[in-house]
Each structure stands twice: as C-alpha cells, then as structure tokens.
C-alpha cells in the first residue's frame, strides 16, 4: 500500500526534480544578489528618509540657511534621490565609490589598500580560531559535563561577555607594557616583509581570536551534541562499533554542515570585530577608516565601507548556506 512505485530514473523527469541541488544553489545565489541590491538601497536611501536634514546635521552649530543651501548644492544633495541613487549605483558597478567629502580624493583608491589589510587581519584570526574552536568543541563534548567541559563553559561564557576593546587594552598592558616585546601600535606599510607584518599584527589577531573563539566553540559544541544524541548514533553503538569509528563514520558527516554554518557565521562576526580592534591598535584598515569617516560625517566613505562590510557578510552567509545545501544527502540524492 505505502510502498512507493519505483520511479523511472533520469531523463524523463523535469530538470528541477533531477537536479534539486543546482536549483537550490541557484536560488540562493539569486537571493544574495537581491539582498545586496536591497542593502544598497537601504544604505543609500535609508539615510535620506531619516528625520533631520543631513546638511544641517553635517554643518552642526554653523548651520545658517545660506550655508545649508550652499552645502546642499555643493554635495549634490539638491537633486532628486532616485537620480543620485542610480548614478551612485552605476558608478559603483564600475568600481567607483565616488569622492570623499573630507579629503576630496577617490574613495575606491583609499579603500583598496585598507581592505587588503583588514582581510589579512581577519584571515589570520580565522586560520587560528577555526581549528582551535572545533578542537575545543570536540574536547568539550568528549568530556561532557565533566571538569574540562565545565571549565571551557565558564571561560567561554566569560569571554563572550568581554568587550573587544577591553581584551585589546588588557593584552597591550600585559604584552607591551609589563612584559614587552609585542608591537604597538600595529603599523603596517607597503613593502613590509611578512615576518614583520605578522609581528605587527600579533596582538590584534590574538584579540580577535579570543573574542571569536568562545562564540564559535560554544556553537560547535551544541552542534556536535545534537548529532551525538541522535538515534543513528545509538545504532552505531549497538552495532558494536568503536567510539572512534562511530564518530568518524557516523557523526562527522552529519555534523559537518552545522559546523560549517557555525564557522561561516563567526567569520562574518569576525569581519565586524575588525572595526573595534583596528581602532584599538591603530591599524590602517577599513574599520578605522570607516569610524574616522563617521566622526566627520563623510557620507560617501561611510556608504562605501558599509556596503563592502555588508557584502562580505552576505557573501559568507551565502557560502555557509550553499555548503549546507551540498552537505544535505536529501538534496544530493533526490528520490
């Protein structure tokens, strides 16, 4: 009655049933693109619909009516919003982020150097924190509810609650002032050799790792525990498989996709953590650049940085989802 008729395989099925994986990935890509477009609208248009006249805010105390009118025409704020948005977007697609109001120089040029610095910082932090987090997560599960697990739990709960700047200054106090040897401020410049560069960013990377590690580890632990408590792990045990075999063969393939998700989520978090850490260590990256621009209300720079940060964030989330889709056997092997 409930037995399914054996479906003819292959060619006669419509495309979306034969390749649900491709369809799902395609959908996800499209969604990200739409999201990015919507975000650009939000970042550009959101500022306009906010209460208060931007020109007045920009000028602050010295906002006389003539000054406001002057600045509006000077910055092109007197033209319709849609026209400015379309122009902005068109230039943006060609890699042109406009001109900085504060310095009058090209935003793209300034960003290109700094973006590399920021990504380098985040990359180093990721390379250290991902294996460490997954490893500690495994240890925590292995000794679940015993001393190592509880210790890791308390330490990570504490670490999650610490502000990045506090960790940063604490590290400076200990490793620069008390012990000495570590570099501060974390200055990097073009043509710097790799060892020098790594030495310069040691403390910022350590700060980022400490901050992101706890989050990633706690989520990894939860993901592994949820897999370990499933019925098929009991089946593996009742088959007489060794603990190692059960974990490698039965738990790992299923834990992979949630862990990938955790990692991607935290990488996205890392990208944002960079902002504060760069300010603490006076590191010439995107974060520092953006904060400076916000302080002087340099709108084109803020918009450009905001969009780039959001794009990286969206990209990472998309990667996580796509990897999760690929790791799902139901989609890889349709009925």
């Amino acid at each position: 009655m409930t037995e399914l008729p054996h479906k003819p395989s292959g060619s006669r099925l419509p495309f979306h049933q034969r390749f649900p994986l491709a369809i799902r990935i395609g959908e996800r890509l499209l969604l990200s693109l739409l999201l990015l477009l919507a975000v650009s609208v939000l970042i550009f248009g959101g500022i306009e619909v906010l209460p208060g006249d931007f020109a007045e805010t920009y000028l602050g105390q010295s906002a006389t009516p003539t000054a406001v009118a002057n600045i509006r025409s000077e910055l092109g704020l007197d033209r319709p919003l849609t026209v400015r948005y379309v122009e902005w977007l068109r230039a943006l697609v060609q890699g042109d982020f406009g001109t900085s109001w504060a310095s009058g120089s090209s935003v793209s040029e300034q960003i290109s150097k700094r973006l590399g610095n920021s990504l380098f910082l985040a990359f180093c932090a990721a390379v250290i924190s991902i294996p460490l987090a997954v490893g500690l997560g495994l240890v925590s599960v292995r000794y679940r509810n015993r001393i190592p697990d509880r210790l890791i739990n308390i330490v990570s709960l504490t670490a999650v609650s610490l502000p990045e700047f506090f960790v940063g200054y604490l590290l400076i106090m200990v490793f620069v002032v008390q012990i000495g040897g570590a570099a501060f401020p974390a200055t990097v410049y073009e043509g710097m050799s790799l060892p020098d560069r790594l030495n310069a960013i040691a403390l910022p990377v350590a700060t980022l790792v400490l901050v992101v590690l706890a989050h990633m580890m706690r989520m990894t632990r939860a993901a592994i525990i949820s897999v370990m408590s499933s019925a098929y792990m009991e089946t593996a045990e009742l088959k007489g498989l060794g603990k190692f075999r059960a974990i490698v063969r039965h738990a790992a393939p299923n834990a992979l996709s949630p862990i990938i998700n955790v990692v991607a989520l935290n990488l996205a978090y890392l990208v944002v953590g960079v902002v504060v850490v760069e300010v603490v260590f006076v590191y010439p990256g995107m974060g520092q650049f953006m904060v400076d621009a916000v302080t002087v209300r340099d709108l084109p720079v803020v918009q450009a940085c905001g969009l780039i940060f959001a794009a990286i964030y969206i990209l990472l989330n998309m990667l996580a989802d796509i990897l999760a889709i690929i790791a799902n056997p139901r989609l890889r092997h349709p009925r």
Partner: protein
Amino acid sequence: MPDKLEKSSPKGQMLSVRNLKIEATSYPQGGAPRRISIVDDISFDLGKGKVLGLIGESGAGKSTIGLAALAYGRGGVEITGGQVLLDGEDLLTASNTRIRQIRGSRVCYVSQSAAASFNPAHRLGEQVVEAAIRHKLMNREEAHKRACHLFSILGLPDPHTFGSRYPHQVSGGQLQRAMTAMALCSSPDLIVFDEPTTALDVTTQIDVLAAIKHAIEETGTSALYITHDLAVVAQVADDIMVLRNGRTVEYGPVQKIIDAPSEDYTRKLVNVRSIRHSQASGQNLPFFEMIGITAGYAGGVDVLHEVSLHVAKGQTLAIVGESGSGKSTLARVATGLLPPSSGEVVLDGQELRPALKQRSRDELRKVQLIYQMADTAMNPRQTVGDIIGRPLTFYDGLRGSARKAKVVELLDQIEMGKAFIDRYPAELSGGQKQRVAIARALAASPELIICDEPTSALDPLVADGILKLLLDLQAERQLSYVFITHDIAIVRAIADSVAVMFQGELVRFGPKSDVLSPPFDDYTDLLLKSVPEMRPGWLEEVIASRKQASADN
C-alpha cells in the same frame, strides 16, 4: 557465508536472564536525586531459534529489558543486578571490549523508528553490511551478497539495487525491513525487535510482520519480540512474558497465555476491546451531513474528492483509513478549519458556513473536537479548572461559583472528582488528560463531537476506559460522534455506521453490519484482513489467502 558454529550453553539456552534488576536516577525539581527501579527480578530462558514475546503497556520496562540483552542502558538507566547469559556467558560482567565484540555480531537490535535509526548520510547497503564487515565475519563482497539475499527474503523491491539507495529515498515499511536485514546480516544468535511494526499502517504492518517471521525461520536466529499488541506477538512468538511496572505478571507458551491466562491482568489484556455496542437502527435521518466535499491545501492537489456521508442523532459514525487517506482532513473541513473548495456541511438541517471565522458562536458550540494528543491539546499553563471552565464562561457566561459547580459536575461525569480542579496537565496521566479534553468538549454542551483518534496514543486498557466513557456519555446526552480511527477493532466496538476512506475518496459507507460484511471491495477486504487476530496461525492464513488471491487474478 560461513556456517554458524553450534554453540551451546550448559542448559542449551541461547539467552538466559536471571533476576535482572535495572535502575535509574531521577532528578525531581528542587528535590534530592533518588533511585527508581525500572525493572525488577526478571528471569526467562530463550532457546535457540525460539522467539520470546515481551508484552506490556508503556512504562512496563519491556524495551529496557530488550536492550539489556545487549548490555545497554538507554538514557542513563543502569543495569544493577542479575545476570544476562548469552550462550552461558554473562554479559553484565564482560569487559567493554567483549561487549563491543558481541554487539552487532551475536546480538543485534531492530528499533521502532528505523527512519531515525539509519544514518541519513550513508547508503542503506553500506549500513546493512557495516557490522558484519567490522566484526570480520565476512568480507565486503560476501556481506553485500548476503545483504542482497536478505533484501529478497524480506520482500524488498529490486534487491540488487536496493542497497544503493539512501534512507530518505525509501518508504517507512521498507526502512523497517532494511533494519531487519541489517540485524540479520551478521547471522546473529539473537535479535531484539523493539516494536518494529508499531509505527506502520496496518496493511503495511502485516507485510513487515510476515517478512520478519519468514526471515527468522529462514535464518534460525533466536529473537526477543517487544510489543504492546498481544495479537501481533501471538503471530511470531513461541513464548510470551507479560510485564507490568517492570515486573513479570505471567510467563508461558503463547497458547496458554491467550487461551488460559492465569492472571487477572493478562485476562484483561486478552479481552481488551470487549466492548460490544449494538448497532442503532434507523440511520437514515441525517443529523450531521457532509455533501460532496472536495478540499485541498493551498497550492496543492485535492486531498478529498467528492466525499458525502452523514450520521444520525445520538449515533456514531466511524471513519477508517490509513495515514494519507484524508480522514483527518475531513475533520478539519467539518470544523471549519479548512473551508472546502466545493460541497457543504449541514448540522441539524442548517448549513454551516465553510470557514471558521464566519461561523457564529452557537454554531461553534455545537461542534466540538477531541484531539489525538491530549498533551498538546491543553495549555500547559492552565489548570484543569480553567481548561474545563473556559467554554462555560465563553459560551454561557458562567463565572465564579456557578462555573466552579459546573466544572465539578463535569469532573464527576468523567469519573475524576473535584480534587483535580487545581492540577496542571503535566500532573495528569495520559488517560486523565484525555478525560479532561472530553470534559472540555462537554462543557460547551455540544451536539456533535468529532473524535480524531482520541485513543491511539493510549495503552489498550486505558483506551478501553475512554471508549466506555464516550459511549456512556452518548447514551446519556444523545450525542452524535464522528470517530476517526485506523483501528478496525474500535470500529467494531463502538460504531453504528462506518465510512472507509482511501487516498481521499470514500470507498465504502453504510451501517456497520453492511460495511463489515461481504461482498467487499478490494481495499476494505485488505484492510479487514490486515487486523491481527489474537490467535496463533492467523498470519499464515492471511498470507496464504493473499497468495491465493493473486494467483487467481
């Protein structure tokens, strides 16, 4: 496949359990942890090639005993005393390494939900042969050959390619058989079957049951068969042990347990569903009527096609069908939760408006629904008094002492008494919860109650009590019931008229005596023949008659 060595324990028993004691630690809220006994003083012997049925209600400890045969305690239970002798070797004192050697090679396990027990990431074939290969019982090629052989014994389609599918690609009945194949693959001495057919539809259940029985006979393995259904175990077991609250009630050969039980409790289990409700005459005056109902969920295909049925005042219409037959959808249409795309619903000569929101308070009052899961049907943050009292306030405006008096009266009618008025649902047993749900329905003073499998989540004896209560209330208040069920035994017990549903269509409808007697249509015939009867040999007869039927065609 290597021939199995003759192994014999001193007494010639495959499995001997002596004075087994199993305990767990419970952590009550706010109190000190305490030890609770789950299984106490259980002893039995299982000969080679024999099957012992363990039977009991939920909480009887039958699964726990079954898993003890693998020296395994699920979720923190501990085996604290006695012996589990496999071929004379005590598993409870064996080392971890030794136990690991035995699990999956000499003792295997088949769980209730194969769907969860298979790893979604690997092909079925790989999982079936894994234990045999890991325990070095055979090489990969031999193992796959054996798996293939087992797939065909178990009646799985395309045995040669079946193993290359993933768990989500096959049906529930097939998964359950694949799990049996997984257990049989290592040619174990003993297999523990833990309610292997409980989650399946009746017509699928007997196929799987027959496949399991056939496979046990073919391979000559011993088995522990755990179930709550005496009729099922009567088909496969040689001996039966009846358990209650972790203790043995009665233990003996199948024939003796069924024909001449010596304990009261066993007698009750054997005679469960002894309710005989005589069919009402004069069923043609419809009180509640559904005419030409076609319905489906948004954006999908129709789940119901042109269904017409009715029930007279004070009578019971039973709607039978398997999962996916559309019987629950019918209930949603009747209550207005799912407006039909065509057709109408009539109560007492008046057409009920199709959507819930359009119905008047009085129309809503007249039709009440009782859910399958009493657990989720009641707000866990409300007391019994609030749950039963709300309809009184809502429909009749009763408050304060008048409302309380009425609640007490209703509690009396469901045989629970006023002590329960301040209890929360979490503090009630399954049967009590369902009684409260009935009281809530009664509080609205309804004329029609739709019962959506109200007893299927309950143990048989408790279910019997609920059915009796429903019949008593019907006699007292002239209530009409639409009773949705998959259980033919319940239909026999309480219905006046019967509707048989199959894939969204009404295949048979009429007075019970007509519907349940020949000549049958194919589906009703299959359905009726799939209901296990409490006598050994029934399964063989059914299978034989099915073979006959297919040979005739």
